[in-house]
């Protein structure tokens, strides 16, 4: 073990060396010395060194000095990396809704539907006489049920038309009444048959 006196002497010698190196650096490139961490008073830079340091800092790195050469060498060795380009990743493709296939009968039905909508908009409630409405409703009811039976299920109302909840309740009530069914029976059939 070394005595406290000897270790402090060593520190002083090391501090002196560092101070010497730092002052040499300041003189050559006017860059701040880094080895100034030792807290002892002996390592405190002189007022002249402090002034030189401040001047060097304010002037920045001067061309054709050792510091400038070091900076140039670093720049050449490691060129600034640009940000990596962002890649586009396709997560999902959502197809367009099913294409509509129009048959001749479908086109005729659409024409009649458009005519009814227009008549309704104009307030003409007699555009279709009751027997014509009965024929249409009956045929559509059977067609929809037959499709549903074979598993071809689709929303009963869709596309570019909208019916109100009241319209639906009036129509459903009339359909049930036409075949002498109660709402209770409809509910029971739906729960038993999972429809």
């Amino acid at each position, binding site marked *: 073990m070394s005595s406290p006196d000897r270790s402090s002497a060593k520190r002083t010698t090391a501090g002196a060396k560092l101070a010497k190196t730092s002052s040499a650096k300041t003189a050559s490139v006017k860059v701040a010395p880094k080895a100034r961490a030792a807290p002892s008073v002996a390592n405190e830079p002189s007022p002249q060194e402090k002034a030189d340091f401040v001047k060097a800092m304010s002037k920045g790195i001067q061309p054709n000095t050792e510091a400038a050469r070091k900076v140039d060498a670093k720049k050449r060795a490691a060129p600034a990396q640009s940000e990596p380009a962002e890649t586009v990743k396709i997560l999902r493709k959502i197809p367009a809704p099913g294409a509509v296939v129009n048959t001749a009968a479908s086109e005729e039905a659409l024409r009649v539907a458009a005519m009814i909508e227009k008549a309704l908009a104009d307030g003409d409630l007699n555009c279709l006489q009751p027997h014509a409405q009965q024929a249409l409703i009956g045929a559509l009811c059977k067609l929809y049920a037959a499709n549903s039976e074979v598993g071809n299920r689709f929303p009963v109302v869709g596309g570019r*038309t*909208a019916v109100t909840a009241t319209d639906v309740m009036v129509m459903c009530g009339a359909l049930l009444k036409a075949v002498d069914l109660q709402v209770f029976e409809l509910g029971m059939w739906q729960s038993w048959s999972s429809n």
Partner: protein
Amino acid sequence: MAEQFVGKASEFKDGERQIIQIGKREIGVFRHEGEFYAYSNICLHQGGPACEGLTIANVEERLRDDKTSMGLFFSEKDMNFVCPWHGYEYDMKTGEHISDRSQKLRKYEVLTKGDDVYVVA
């Protein structure tokens, strides 16, 4: 902001959508009536996948001259898309929430150069 290639216009059918990821951003790219639209895929409500729900025509109430209602109809020209989580509905052309136009999804510019489609993001 850079132009990011997202696909060929010829392979993008009308009515189709693509959900893409650019960096950390998830974007829905729509093709509707020949035009391309791109919006952030994060719903303003609770962060759901806003661009992945139904596309549905705007429902509008038509009025007679005396301001009485003719009923509700689907619009012939305005299309909306609906967040599948809670039904927030956005205008296809602007990304605005249909009942509060001050709220809107972040919109991304879509460029077509020849057959190539780019999103600026």
